[in-house]
């Protein structure tokens, strides 16, 4: 599958939510969308699933403009939105049966349902009404419906919210395995999730793509821009003042026996800081910082 976005912009009442986005995605791929709230992640995802039209630009799926062949996309799509509800009066099995019909699954419907129930560990709850499930279990039902038709394109928006660490790991692996022969797009605030499974990362901020590439490339860009410093006593005020001025961003604060140890990301790291190897989270912060500097903030 090939998805191509050309010069995509989206305006809401004059405010740009996406600004001239160009992107090409080919299967297989496991892509992580990261960015702060309001960066345009959900807007971009809604466009990719055909629920939102761009103000300008074009999206093509396998060479065909999306607006002319939404059916082609929807037949191959699995989608879990960030904010969703389920038919709570139905049991898990009934809900998946209902969704299977919407997805046009006729043959081996029962097997498909069994498969996703098993993949999402909902065997014990299959006969339970959805309204009786916990938040995490409902999230699993949401994921189950998204993968019910074994989609070529799986788009999941904040899929691990509400899941316990064990479940998160399980689903990360599930998505990762699925991406062997398809496109999986994962939007999240949890960098760890991306770090674990994504072979590609897209950083968005204020409607612009700040970075597209492998996570290691993003980390590479942050080399020499991440450091630590241990501050004693009154010097704490000084470092916070410097952050306020925008000289760097503190990514971690640890209280030590000698004072406070700060981990910072900066465009030009002061000499007093000890340079360290950046994590993906540091690299993300650096990317955002760089983006802000470029935009003149």
């Amino acid at each position: 599958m090939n998805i191509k976005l050309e010069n995509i912009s989206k305006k809401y009442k004059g405010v740009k939510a996406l600004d001239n986005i160009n992107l090409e995605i080919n299967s297989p791929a496991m892509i992580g969308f990261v960015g702060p709230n309001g960066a345009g992640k959900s807007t971009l995802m809604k466009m990719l699933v055909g629920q939102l039209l761009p103000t300008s630009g074009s999206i093509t799926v396998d060479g065909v403009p999306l607006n002319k062949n939404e059916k082609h996309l929807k037949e191959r799509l699995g989608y879990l939105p960030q904010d969703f509800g389920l038919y709570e009066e139905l049991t898990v099995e009934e809900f998946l049966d209902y969704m299977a019909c919407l997805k046009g699954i006729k043959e081996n419907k029962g097997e498909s349902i069994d498969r996703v129930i098993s993949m999402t560990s909902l065997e014990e709850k299959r006969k339970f009404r959805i309204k009786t499930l916990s938040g995490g279990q409902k999230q699993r039902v949401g994921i189950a419906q998204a993968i019910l038709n074994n989609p070529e394109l799986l788009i999941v928006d904040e899929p691990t919210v509400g899941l316990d660490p064990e479940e998160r790991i399980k689903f990360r692996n599930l998505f990762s395995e699925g991406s062997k022969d398809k496109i999986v797009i994962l939007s999240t605030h949890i960098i760890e999730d991306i770090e674990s499974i994504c072979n590609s990362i897209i950083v968005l901020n204020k409607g612009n793509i700040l970075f597209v590439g492998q996570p290691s490339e993003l980390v590479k860009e942050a080399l020499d821009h991440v450091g630590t410093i241990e501050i004693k006593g009154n010097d704490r005020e000084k470092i916070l003042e410097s952050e306020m001025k925008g000289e760097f961003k503190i990514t971690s604060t640890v209280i030590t026996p000698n004072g406070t140890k700060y981990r910072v990301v900066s465009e030009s790291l002061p000499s007093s800081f000890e340079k360290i190897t950046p994590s993906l989270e540091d690299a993300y912060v650096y990317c955002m910082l760089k983006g802000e500097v470029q935009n003149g903030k």
Partner: protein
Amino acid sequence: MANKILLVKNEIKYMFKEKVIILLILATCIILAIGINSLNMTNDFNLFYIKRNSSTISFNSAKFGATICSLLFALFTVLKLDKDKRKRSRTIVESNLDYLYIIGARIFSIIFYAVITTIIGMIAVMAIQKLIYNIPIDISYYLFSYLIIFFPTLLFSILMISGLYLLTESLDMSVITFGMIFINSLESNNYLLTWVRTNLDIVSDFAGIGPIGNTIIYNRLLWFLISLSIFGIGLLFRRRYESGVGSSFLINMKSKGLLTLTILVILGSGCTYTKEPYTMELMNDLDISIDENICLDGICPEIKFDSENGEMDAHVSYSFINNGSNTIKFDINDGLKINSLKVNGEEIVYQKIKNKNVIEVSIPDVEKVNVDIFYSGSVKCDKNGVGRGMPGYISKESIYLLEASNWIFRPLIAEGDMIDISGYYIAPDYLTMVVPGRLVDVETIDGNKKWIFEYSSHTADIGAFAAKYEKAQIEVNNVAVEFYYTPKHEEYVDNMKIVDHIKSMMEYYTQNIGEYYSKDYPLKIVEVSIYKRGGHSSENVITFAENTINRDNSMYSILNKNNEIEDFRKVDIYANDLNLIAHEVAHQWWGTGVNVIDDTPWSCEGLANYFSYKYIQKEFGDMVSSGVFLQPWKYRVNELKNYYYINNDDMKEKLNERFIRSLEMEKRQAELYYLMPLKLLKGEEIQGEKVFLEGIQGVYRRHLLKDLTYDEFLQEMNLTREAIDVD
């Protein structure tokens, strides 16, 4: 296509699982069962205890059910369409397929359940009829009531609220808007607008569905198009891609098929409304003035009825005495097409007056003018009178044509002292025709009968009534009385001694007013269909609606073996029924015998009401006559005093003309029918019953076949307006 069918099946399956639909079907069955008795729960006293049969049971249940179930189905529909919004599941659902398919599948599923509900409800009501009431089932009435009235109402509700929901994308707004359309339908008198339960109060046992069948189907056709239009508009404004209403419309407009279909159904609705073929606005013609320079001398109607097709073919000859007019105007019926018009033997071109059902014919300046009009077609009735106040119809089972329908074109000129009327009606031989005046002869021609008649009258009011009648013939004081009624109601007529009462009325009026006005013409009392409520009297023919002699068997308990009143529980209905006949019979004295010149509150209605009240008082005693008549009359008269606009003429300017007219009509009716008889009773109270009735006998004698004004009456009765003031 297979996928779409699968979607519908899926929706049907999951709606069933939700159980709400089962509750809805159950509720519908209960509502339909309650509806069987709905006539007795209304304010329509005249329809209480109507005899139960397939037509009343199926129609009442369907009509009552349609009213409530249309709301329930509308609510169910809008909740189903709003489901994904409420549950925040739309994004998930929409990611699988075009959301339009889901909307379509849900609407089709609800329609499917509406069909199932209709069938189950119909079977339930049939079972009640058969097993509880032990009444044989006539399936045709059930099919009419449930397939033409009940189910379409549900369908319209589903389509309209779906359209409104798609248009507003708001549960509240769509329900409120639907509620307004719903209430408008319940309050309207225009049969075209009454989509919820139709304009009918009841299906006639006498005439069947025939006279109104076409109008009901037309109403359904119109509202099918209107609801499709609303649905189409909803689809055109269906929100797309999280856009606003305008942007969504621009996107949806690209679907040429939807746009074209919506425009077509909107145009179709408009055309169906404006080109409606069965009714006209008869009321508009009230304003037309009368030409006093020419008077009518004679009429010869030669009419052939084609009851199979509901049509007639007429040749009517009019002879006039002209005192200087150049034209004659005729009030016509829009459904009857003029084929030819001759004045003194020469064909001429007439003019139709714009926006009126009036034609103008040029005449030569000679004393004697003969006009021959040849016309044919179907009689149209008033838009607001369908099923309730139809002044004319021709159907296979019966014919009912009052002068008010202008089925005989009415010349708008002064009526002479006496008009010679003679002619004939040709109708299928299975119908018994009731002709005005004297029946001269009946000839049989090719499966038809020709009913030849003649009479003289001071009005040009000519009626025609036909059905498969039984005829009871009695003679009272040398006056022949013919009573025509349908064999279906024979049992009630016998048990409730209707013929005896008619005889008793005639005797009472003869004794207390005077001799019947004519020895030549028999008095004809005719049962007609409920599609014209109440009664009517013209020349020697009176008609009354079937409900008067089509009550439930439980009414029989009113009379004991000696025909005395034993059970007073339903006596007010019986008294009211007899009063209707007594009132119309009294018009033969006051209206036909004596031409009472209207001078509100003075008119023949007050005198007829006074005498019918006196008759009921004699038969049923003071308690019944006072409770059923006197108290309601006083109430209505007192009520007039509380009408703000009636008592403040200067404020009327603020009202629209139609409302003023309706208020004035109400006031006039109260004065004619209730105030005047109260005044007469006051006169009776002043003079004593014996003196008062002797006085009236004198007035009748002196004015027989002449005019009688209010002043003449008061003077001859030694009364004054002030003396009989009832304030």
